[in-house]
């Protein structure tokens, strides 16, 4: 080790003030990062890893945030004591950041060229032609095909992966010494994630910069980092080279994290189980309307001729990249959006039914959404959220009886019924998702759509939710339609699988068959990205 590391964080603390209370988010964290190395900060949401990273460039919401202690030595200077001018010259030039959500990190009103050129100009580049050439070179470097044609694109015209590439191009524009990546791939599809990781790794090798990589996904750490620091509740509980930490984890929390991958096997596919819902040649086409008279000139075929069958006690996994029509398919089957094609639910044709006629059927079909923060109304208590369906579907029930049903549903999903009069914001993400599951289960449905129920959760919580879902399925004989782009979770839950691409089924079969022997290139690329974080180069998946 050299005498002076590039970045030396010593005893850093971050506290947030709200009203009279101060909460300590980061508590005495110390780590060092050498040039050319990669340090991964691992931990679940709320463990303080983002706050640590943001305080390096002093981007926390001051004065609500404050540093009770610590120093951050970057090339020997303490950034916590640096003045605004010094910080500005460091940010974007010596230290750059890439955030999780590429859509909100880019200004939607500026073109790609303008945003990257701004970075270059701020730190000294001059001359329109020279800057343009630099921008093109940068875009080429981050792997955007034919970059000349992309200069005038706006962020919304790019895919998620391309937007993240543009963000990386901006971050690399001034050849930083330290590159901070705050969950740069969490919002992306697995296939795109693999590509971005490969790109980052290649660029780091080429440019020799140090990288601070923040993630909750241990698979990524293993692939990309040299060293790892595990954070829990604001403290680093274990740190060291990736190999030794993964081989011989010392701390109990690290061991728990490593063991947290979704496990267990789904019930085997059983073609004789009674059918709960079938849809045949289902189509959801959104018309494209143009001109003064809004004539229909074409269709966006979100779901185009998909046939599915879901059986009692079984799970149908729906797999595909974002935009492949997974959620649209689920909403169509639940009759929440308009569709064409017969849907048979519990032996009854439901595709022509009106809203009112559907209502009694809704108690048997439920849905759990991806985002446990958006799917629970912040204004209602847990009891009010869970009993919402009962008030419609089971009008005869007295108030006390309804509370009893709610209590049982909460207990069923592993929550304490005594918490039923609390509000959603008092619960963690995993607990919120349990509440969302309890809301669906309170009606004792026969068919539940699970729309990426684990994607917004931490790895360790994902495993718990998967166990919960499988347990509920076993006890109540539920039929699941499980949507996910995360194939590890699908493997733990689904007995049958359909692979969707651009609204069409690419491959269908039992989970055992497909996981063992994927037939199409698309499925193969999905699998290699999901299980081995390998980027596909053949071009079957989106960029």
């Amino acid at each position, binding site marked *: 080790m050299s005498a002076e590391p590039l970045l030396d964080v010593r005893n850093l603390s971050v506290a947030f003030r709200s009203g009279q209370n101060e909460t300590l988010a980061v508590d005495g964290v110390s780590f060092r990062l050498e040039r050319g190395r990669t340090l991964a900060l691992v931990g679940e949401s709320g463990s303080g890893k983002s706050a640590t990273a943001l305080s390096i460039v002093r981007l926390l919401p001051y004065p609500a945030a404050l540093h009770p202690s610590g120093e951050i030595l970057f090339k020997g200077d303490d950034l916590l004591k640096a003045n605004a001018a010094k910080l500005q010259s460091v940010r974007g030039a010596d230290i750059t950041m890439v955030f999780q959500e590429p859509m909100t990190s880019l200004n939607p009103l500026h073109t790609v060229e303008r945003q990257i050129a701004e970075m270059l100009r701020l730190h000294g580049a001059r001359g329109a032609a020279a800057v343009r050439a630099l921008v093109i070179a940068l875009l080429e470097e981050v792997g955007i095909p034919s970059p000349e044609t992309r200069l005038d694109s706006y962020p919304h015209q790019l895919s998620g992966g391309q937007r993240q590439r543009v963000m990386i191009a901006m971050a690399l524009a001034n050849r930083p010494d330290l590159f901070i990546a705050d969950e740069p791939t969490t919002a992306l599809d697995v296939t795109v994630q693999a590509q971005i990781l490969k790109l980052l790794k290649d660029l780091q090798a080429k440019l020799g910069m140090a990288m601070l990589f923040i993630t909750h996904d241990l698979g990524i750490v293993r692939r990309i980092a040299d060293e790892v620091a595990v954070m829990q509740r604001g403290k680093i509980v274990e740190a060291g080279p990736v190999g030794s930490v993964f081989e011989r984890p010392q701390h109990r929390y690290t061991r728990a994290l490593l063991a947290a991958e979704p496990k267990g096997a789904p019930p085997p596919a059983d073609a004789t189980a009674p059918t709960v819902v079938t849809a045949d040649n289902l189509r959801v086409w959104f018309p494209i309307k143009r001109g003064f008279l809004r004539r229909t000139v074409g269709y966006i075929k979100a779901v185009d001729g998909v046939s599915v069958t879901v059986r009692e006690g079984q799970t149908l996994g729906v797999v595909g990249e974002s935009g492949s029509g997974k959620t649209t398919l689920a909403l169509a089957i639940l009759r929440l959006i308009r569709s064409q094609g017969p849907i048979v639910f519990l032996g009854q044709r439901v595709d022509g039914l009106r809203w009112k006629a559907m209502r009694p059927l809704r108690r048997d079909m439920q849905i759990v959404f991806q985002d446990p923060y958006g799917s629970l109304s912040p204004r209602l208590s847990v009891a009010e959220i869970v009993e919402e369906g009962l008030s419609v579907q089971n009008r005869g029930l007295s108030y006390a009886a309804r509370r009893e049903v709610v209590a049982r549903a909460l207990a069923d999903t*592993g929550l304490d019924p005594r918490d039923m009069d609390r509000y959603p*914001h008092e619960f963690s993400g995993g607990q919120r998702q349990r509440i969302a599951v309890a809301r669906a289960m309170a009606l004792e449905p026969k068919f539940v759509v699970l729309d990426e129920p684990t994607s917004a959760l931490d790895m360790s919580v994902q495993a718990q939710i998967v166990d919960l879902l499988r347990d509920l399925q076993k006890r109540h004989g539920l039929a699941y339609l499980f949507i996910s782009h995360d194939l590890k979770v699908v493997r733990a839950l689904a007995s049958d699988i359909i692979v969707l691409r651009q609204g069409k089924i690419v491959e269908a079969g039992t989970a055992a068959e497909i996981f063992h022997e994927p037939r199409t290139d698309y499925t193969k690329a999905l699998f290699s990205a999901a299980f081995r974080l390998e980027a596909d180069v053949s071009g079957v998946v989106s960029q």
Partner: protein
Amino acid sequence: MTVTSRTGLAPEPAVLPAPDRAPLAPPLPHKRLLNLSPINQRRLANFKRNKRGYWSFWIFMVLFVASLFAEFIANDRPIIASYKGEILFPVFVDYPEDKFGGFLAQTDYRDPFVADEINAHGWMIWPPVRFSYNTINRDLPQGTAEKKLGAPAAPTWLLTDEECRTGRTPDGKTPGSCRDIEWNWLGTDDQARDLVARLIYGFRISVLFGLILAGISSMIGVAAGAVQGYFGGWLDLIFQRFIEIWSSLPQLYILIILAGILVPGFFMLLGIMLLFSWVTLVHLVRAEFLRARNFEYVTAARALGLSNAKIIFKHLLPNAMVATLTFLPFVLNGSIETLTALDYLGLGMPPGSASLGEILLQGKTNLQAPWLGLTGFFTIAILLSLMVFIGEAARDAFDQRKIYR
């Protein structure tokens, strides 16, 4: 299980349900009078923390509630009187004068003859100000031939004893000093009516008018915005174009024309102004609904089978209420201003009624009596400022990102 612990890894104890066990549901939480959700509790705390807005709110409430009881504060008849062993309530009941030995259809309790008669056979409890908004003070100091006083009379505390001697005491005698005559704390208007009384009644009518107008127009506006935002499509399109045309009509001219044709009165004015004021909130509420109707918890409610009306009331309206409540004090201000403006132009409330605009108008026509203009100006300025401060505090209280130190 402690909810605050966020380890996530600690195995959460699963309480397995046993169908025939004692009830699992906890007893109902103790319901307080005002059962606020935590969000609203925080908002209330934030509102209280804005000292200026919080104090403005209480000052306004005290003034408003006090003005609601204007008849008990400023009136030309006693609140309670006892006459020959009978308890009378002149505030509420019109007693003919022959009850007290007179001949008029209505009793003038300020008349020394009546007052003496009642005091001789009982007693009277008067409000602090013995003038109503339309009581003409006939005992005003009239001044001398060289220096005429009369209406509009200056506040009594500005007069010299000499000037006061040209007036009369309430019982019809010549006063020795200013202490003997009935005081007009803020003077009188040009028809010798006490300004304090007119101010109290005018304040009441302005605020009531503003509140009712703001209330009804928000109800209509929220309903219209809700329907447009929730259902969207052609309905939204047509409604929006209609509102664009409607709100581009020249409101003030139409108000003036209508006020000229129809007999002006409280409810007539309310109706006319309602025609235009409901539009203010529509865009706000519509935008909130457009945003919120795609929230996941709204989709979840649809999947649970809730009807549109229920979804609107339970999930969407609370969202829109934030925008509405934030805007309401400003709508209220606008309503008060419009009424004042109409009164000032002489197109508002019928002649003789007390209103803030009318005081201003008198101030303009009687520039030699600055107490009229100053009173009107300060009342309106303070009233509107209070509302703006309250509105600011409410807006900040609803702002999630606002950090209080």
